[in-house]
């Protein structure tokens, strides 16, 4: 029209032309497809597990009779292994991140090598951490590799790079002015880190760490390698006790011949999903609640 000569602002809405609508349509369709599969998966799993949502799941051990089988050993195994994993990975990961972010001289070649390696480690397939742990346990002379401490070690190695990277991210988000202000008051660098930088970064660290731990809960591959695919009818009662975990128990039941085992597997899957979703929910909650506006 005569846009250049008069100052009319009427016209066909540009957001409503054909191309924009097609484009938006494709976006919505993609979202819909992704969502649809998620829903189908959830609904079918939930229905497959029908009839098994009861206390047997929590109280009974695995059993050759499907009707009597429960996931008690696997649930406790998952919780135990993941707690030990968190105890190993989180302090080490945070300490490593603090060193790299706050103290390391980045111009030194060895710090650059470490940095690059951590980035790469985060992308290493999980199974390799299983192999590494297997090697370590062999060197230590452990005959039975399927022990809690071994599984935790594998999972801790697996999530360590993620913990380091997210902690560094959170530390980096703390404005330099806060460190400057603290140092200018005569605080030491250690005081500045422990009393200013780390506390200010805790929401970010917590979010990243919870997500990392929830990854460990869902992981099966490295534990399979350590031989966690076993029939266990007792509670894991020590760092050297044998164990199985929920993902592995699910795997073992789904590959079993009897159809009823698939039912228990589905019910356990729903439980695992519920745990993962609530952990992610907590992470999102922390992120939103404590989101800092500097």
């Amino acid at each position, binding site marked *: 029209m005569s846009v250049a000569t008069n100052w009319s602002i009427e016209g066909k809405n540009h957001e409503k032309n054909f191309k924009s609508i097609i484009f938006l349509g494709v976006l919505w369709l993609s979202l819909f497809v992704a969502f649809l599969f998620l829903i189908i998966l959830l609904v079918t799993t939930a229905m497959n597990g029908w009839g098994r949502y009861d206390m047997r799941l929590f109280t009974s051990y695995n059993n050759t009779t499907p009707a009597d089988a429960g996931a008690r050993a696997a649930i406790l195994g998952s919780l135990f292994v993941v707690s030990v994993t968190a105890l190993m990975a989180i302090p080490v990961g945070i300490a490593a991140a603090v060193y790299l972010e706050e103290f390391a*001289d980045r111009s030194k070649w060895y710090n650059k090598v470490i940095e690059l390696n951590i980035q790469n480690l985060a992308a290493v397939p999980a199974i390799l951490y299983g192999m590494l742990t297997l090697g370590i346990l062999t060197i230590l002379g452990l005959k039975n590799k399927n022990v809690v401490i071994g599984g935790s070690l594998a999972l801790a190695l697996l999530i360590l790079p993620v913990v380091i990277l997210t902690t560094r991210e959170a530390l980096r988000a703390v404005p330099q002015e806060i460190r*400057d202000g*603290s140092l*200018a*008051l*005569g*605080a030491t660098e250690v005081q500045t880190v422990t*009393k*200013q930088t780390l506390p200010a970064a805790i929401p970010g660290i917590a979010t990243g760490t919870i997500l990392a731990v929830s990854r460990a809960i869902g992981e099966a591959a490295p534990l399979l390698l350590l031989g966690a695919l076993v029939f266990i009818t007792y509670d894991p009662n020590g760092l050297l006790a044998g164990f199985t975990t929920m993902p592995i128990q699910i795997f073992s039941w789904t590959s079993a011949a009897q159809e009823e085992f698939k039912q228990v597997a589905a019910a356990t899957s729903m439980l695992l999903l519920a745990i993962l979703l609530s952990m992610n929910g907590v992470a999102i909650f922390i992120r939103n609640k404590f989101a800092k506006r500097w």
Partner: protein
Amino acid sequence: MTSESQGLSRGMHLGGSTRGEIVQPIMELRNLNVYYGDFHAVRDISLDVGANQITAFIGPSGCGKSTVLRCLNRTNDLVPSARVTGGIDYRGHDLYGPSVDPIEVRRRVGMVFQKPNPFPKSIFDNIAYGPRVTGMKLNKSETEDLVEHALSKAGLWSEVKDKLDQSGFALSGGQQQRLCIARAIATSPDILLMDEPCASLDPIATSLIEDLMLELVNDYTVVIVTHNMQQAARVSDRTAFFSAKIDDAGQRFGHLVEMDQTSKIFTNPSDSRTEDYISGRFG
């Protein structure tokens, strides 16, 4: 010195004849040179900072005012590439001497930054932080007294006394800057450095801070960097004019053109470059 030229300068705490003359130097810079890596940023600065005076650093951007200021409390040490030669004498001690602990220096020479930088903590903890980390062993009521004292000194007490447990971020920019000043004086420093403390503030907040400086200089020595000529003229006793030059190798570096009583710098400077800068013909 006479009082005719005093219109520009302040007349509050020293009164009359010695204003702007150094009675007792507290810091003496002798041929100070600062390098950032290979870059020789600031060359051969020699000047005195008078005790209980306000010293202003003025000059065009990039001439090294902040660099020199950061040398005075050794915060330049925190820049990995920074290196200093020459000396600074502080109350008879070589500030860069081998046995000097930079952390001790920073406890005696406080600093306020251009952008207010409160800690993400309560107003109370913002003030109490310095005394805590510098090892002042205070009990609860002593800490409370100190917080009140520092906030009162900074002219902020009446505005925040009912919300000490609120975040320092909940204050306005001008209040935040006064909080930062209160935070700095809570550790009872000897000298207070301020790098463009009013650069992000409106005129009313600026004038509050200027009044505060004039108040503080009764107890402390103040060194301020400012781009605001009126501010330098209003508050300072002595003014150092820095400028940048290009050397034979084509490197730009900062140097001190002249330093004198503020009234002299603003009415009758010795160097024509100072006059050009002040009257706006330069930079």
